[in-house]
């Protein structure tokens, strides 16, 4: 059990780092600063988005692989308990998490291609869209992970 708990904590920490990176990049892309950054929010918006691409891809893949591994344990332990307790909405929302994670993963090649240097104006709109969608996927999965863990996760 310690092994799976450690993996789950690691998965959560990677997800947290990913959440920070993708949020930073998305805000900088969709709401860029026009004047020199002064406040905390302005500095948050002023980061160069392109420098996050490699880290985001690596973090997403690592988080995904760990999640896919932990999923095998969830399937034979937590999920059975959730079904016995008739927590079907929690089971359903976790099913959605697996689909969202897959959709996020398949966006990565396009995400990488549209962020390649030098940034092409031809892909500007696609770059904004795919980054926002990836951010929404990461946020959704982070929140769903918390909900499911609260229902029948670590230590329960």
């Amino acid at each position, binding site marked *: 059990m310690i092994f799976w708990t450690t993996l789950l904590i690691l998965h959560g920490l990677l997800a947290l780092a990913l959440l920070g990176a993708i949020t930073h990049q998305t805000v900088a892309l969709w709401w860029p600063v026009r004047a020199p950054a002064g406040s905390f929010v302005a500095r948050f918006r002023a980061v160069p988005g392109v420098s996050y691409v490699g880290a985001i891809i690596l973090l997403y893949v690592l988080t995904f692989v760990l999640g896919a591994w932990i999923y095998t344990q969830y399937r034979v332990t937590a999920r059975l308990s959730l079904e016995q307790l008739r927590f*079907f909405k929690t089971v359903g929302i976790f099913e959605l998490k697996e689909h969202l994670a897959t959709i996020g993963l398949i966006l990565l090649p396009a995400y990488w291609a*549209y962020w390649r240097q030098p940034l092409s104006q031809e892909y500007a709109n696609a770059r904004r869209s*795919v980054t926002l969608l990836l951010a929404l996927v990461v946020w959704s999965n982070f929140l769903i992970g918390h909900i499911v863990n609260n229902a029948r996760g670590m230590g329960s």
Partner: protein
Amino acid sequence: MTASDKIPGFALVFGVAYAAIYVVCTEINLPLITYHPVTGEIGLLRQLAKTGPVMYWYGWMLTSFVGAVALAAVASVLPQSWVQRAIAFGCLLAAAYWIFYTISLFVYDRATVELEFLQFRSLSLGAATLTATIVMFIAPRHWQKRLWYGWIWIVPVGAIGVLAYYLAPYFRQ
């Protein structure tokens, strides 16, 4: 066109095709492999539960990956206009099918006489194919000349919508 220029197009078709195939795989359960988490066994194609539950998710991803790579490879040697038309036609077909099938089931549920034919998916599919063909024919030619990279979010968002709809029974219990 260099190999480097083809990367965005390949990535686009890969993402779009993967999303579409993945939805089909989850709907009709088409895994290339089945994982049995209790025993740790991996079996080829779809297998029934032996000891404990089975997991098809890895298999769906693998099926979709193989299909998407094949389609993206084919698309990378085709003219952009053909790829654009194929994706547009596929999206129109999916949207029209969803509209026709929803209307058919709505009418079937409320009809005072038995209209069993409205339940046939082939009927909605036929109507959707015809509609998509007509729309493609009347759509402005310049829309079909170049590949539109916005498909990379339209199709996955549509796929998420369909996948969420499939999960609705969990939320009705």
